[in-house]
């Protein structure tokens, strides 16, 4: 294999030697996939925070979103930035690491150490590329269950996650109802809509249109389709923000100039901002992995496994749910969460639902949105009391 320039290999290094805990399953423990084949060997890269209590009742599984990873509450090994959910997870936070044992793993198909398209294909001795079978949300959850089994945890106190992470939460609740005491699907949907699929397809086509993509075999050839992946990220990033926030933050403001340049330079601040989002993304994410994780979301339609009626997915569920939406989120709008709530009610499940008022759009679940943090804390504290998890004295931040 040729080597790509150093600045492009940070992500590849994370696949080969992740800066996190690693669990490996050999050929005796293959991961069965929805595609009808098995994945073996399987590596799961994960992080844990806090301590598992003696009765193993305080484990919280955090599921990451599309381009998130297992670095929930620690400095990111590539970007050096804080963990992606430090508003929610940490000492004194709603998912209090002084009280709970928090587990977060990179999804199957990802690029931060869990088996994905950048991993070596045992058959060819080269990276999988597109030879990795297409994975689904259910496959991701199956792999997480293998990790949870390995950690000796029978019932998770809570499974929580936003966006694609929320889909995993719903899948957990449907596939393993008896293993989920509480579930927090946040800013998510039980199925991808035509509009959701459409945006993802734009992203995938941008990646595949980059001449450096090389039919997915770019790693063999020592190149990286950075331009295509950056465009994909730019398009996707727009969907994470509300129009209000775009307008108030950028409006028609010009970038370091007093007049348009009559060129295709980034005259507007929004252009500059999106270009920055695109270029910084390619440093930490793999292009093929982007194809796989977007596909997993597109294939997600939880009701499909239950005769088309979502309520059957949760029938008789003893888990307690807290569904959260954000009123300016147009990617997974409030109506999508409401559909989940109606199904949970119809299935007889115990469900709380809050629609948080914010102008921050889909990204609000990653931000320090006050009402969101407050209700999450209330829900989890009450659930922990019901579960008999000891309180800890810790300063609230």
């Amino acid at each position, binding site marked *: 294999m040729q080597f790509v320039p150093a600045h492009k290999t940070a992500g590849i290094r994370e696949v080969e030697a992740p800066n996190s805990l690693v669990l490996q399953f050999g050929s005796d423990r293959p991961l069965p996939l929805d595609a009808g084949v098995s994945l073996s060997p399987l590596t799961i890269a994960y992080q844990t925070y806090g301590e598992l209590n003696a009765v193993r009742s305080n484990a919280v599984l955090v599921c990451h979103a599309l381009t998130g990873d297992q670095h929930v509450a620690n400095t990111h090994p590539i970007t050096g930035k804080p963990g992606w959910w430090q508003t929610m997870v940490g000492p004194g936070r709603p998912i209090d690491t002084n009280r709970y044992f928090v587990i977060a793993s990179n999804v199957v198909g990802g690029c931060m150490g869990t088996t994905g398209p950048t991993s070596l294909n045992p058959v060819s001795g080269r990276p999988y590329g597109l030879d990795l079978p297409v994975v689904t949300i259910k496959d991701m959850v199956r792999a997480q269950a293998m990790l949870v089994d390995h950690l000796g945890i029978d019932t998770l106190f809570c499974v929580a996650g936003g966006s694609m992470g929320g889909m995993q939460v719903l899948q957990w609740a449907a596939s393993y109802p008896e293993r989920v005491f509480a579930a927090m699907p946040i800013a998510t949907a039980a199925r991808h809509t035509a509009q959701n699929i459409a945006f993802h397809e734009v992203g995938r086509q941008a990646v595949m249109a980059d001449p450096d993509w090389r039919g997915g075999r770019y790693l063999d050839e020592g190149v990286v389709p950075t331009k295509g992946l950056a465009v994909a990220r730019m398009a996707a990033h727009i969907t994470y923000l509300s129009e209000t926030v775009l307008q108030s933050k950028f409006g028609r403001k010009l970038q370091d100039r007093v007049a348009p340049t009559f060129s295709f330079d980034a005259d507007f601040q929004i252009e500059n901002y999106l270009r920055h989002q695109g270029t910084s993304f390619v440093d930490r994410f793999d292009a093929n992995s982007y194809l796989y994780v977007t596909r997993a979301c597109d294939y997600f339609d939880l009701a499909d496994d239950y005769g088309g009626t979502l309520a059957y997915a949760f029938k008789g569920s003893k888990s307690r749910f807290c569904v959260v939406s954000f009123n300016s989120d147009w990617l997974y709008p409030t109506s999508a969460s409401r559909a989940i709530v109606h199904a949970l009610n*119809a299935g007889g499940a115990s469900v*709380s*639902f*809050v629609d948080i008022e914010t102008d921050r759009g889909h990204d609000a679940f990653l931000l320090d949105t006050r009402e969101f943090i407050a*209700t999450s804390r*209330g829900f989890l504290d*009450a659930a922990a*009391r019901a579960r008999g998890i000891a309180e800890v004295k810790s300063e609230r931040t």
Partner: protein
Amino acid sequence: MSVLAERMSLSRWARELPARIDLLLVAEMVEPNSRVLDVGCGDGTLLRLLAEEKQVDARGIELSQQGVNDCVAKGLPVIQGDADADLAFYPDDAFDYVILSQTLQATRQPRKVLEQMLRIGRHAIVSFPNFGHWRIRLQVAFGGRMPLTRNLDCAWYDTPNIHFCTIQDFIALVHEIDARIERGMALDYFGAPLGTNIPWLWNLLGEQAVFRLTRKNEN
């Protein structure tokens, strides 16, 4: 729990909710260990009362974000929604009681809401302000203006209450939708039940009323 003990236990709550005596009367109509949906549950006071005093599996629907947040923070399973839109999504017989306190007059389709309540619950408990009260009649008859009272203190142009009714109107609707009144009481100015059972007196003297209904074919 004996009736007396229960009354005494509930009276502790009366100190906490002096303005909502109707909630205590509603609570008295609910059997222990039952399943309850409180539509328009506010900050969850009644849900908490039912859960703690009667070991009820109590759930709620509330429109305001503040109310929902308060409830969820207390660990109560409450969803953001409203009576007109969300009741339709619950299955038949999901609850023993569906409660609507002081909200019927603010719904867009009171008749449909009542029908939905009796579809998803074996019993419906409804409390509402009585528009037939003599004070209101006097204000309209002699003042010539829309009435303003202690309980109904919003001007006509910004009141959330769009479907007022009198106690007799309500009773007529109950018959129209094939429901049956199991228990009922009218409350005076101080929130105490009136000592009479004569309907037209209720209609004249009751500031508000609380009814427990069931389907006609239900025992």
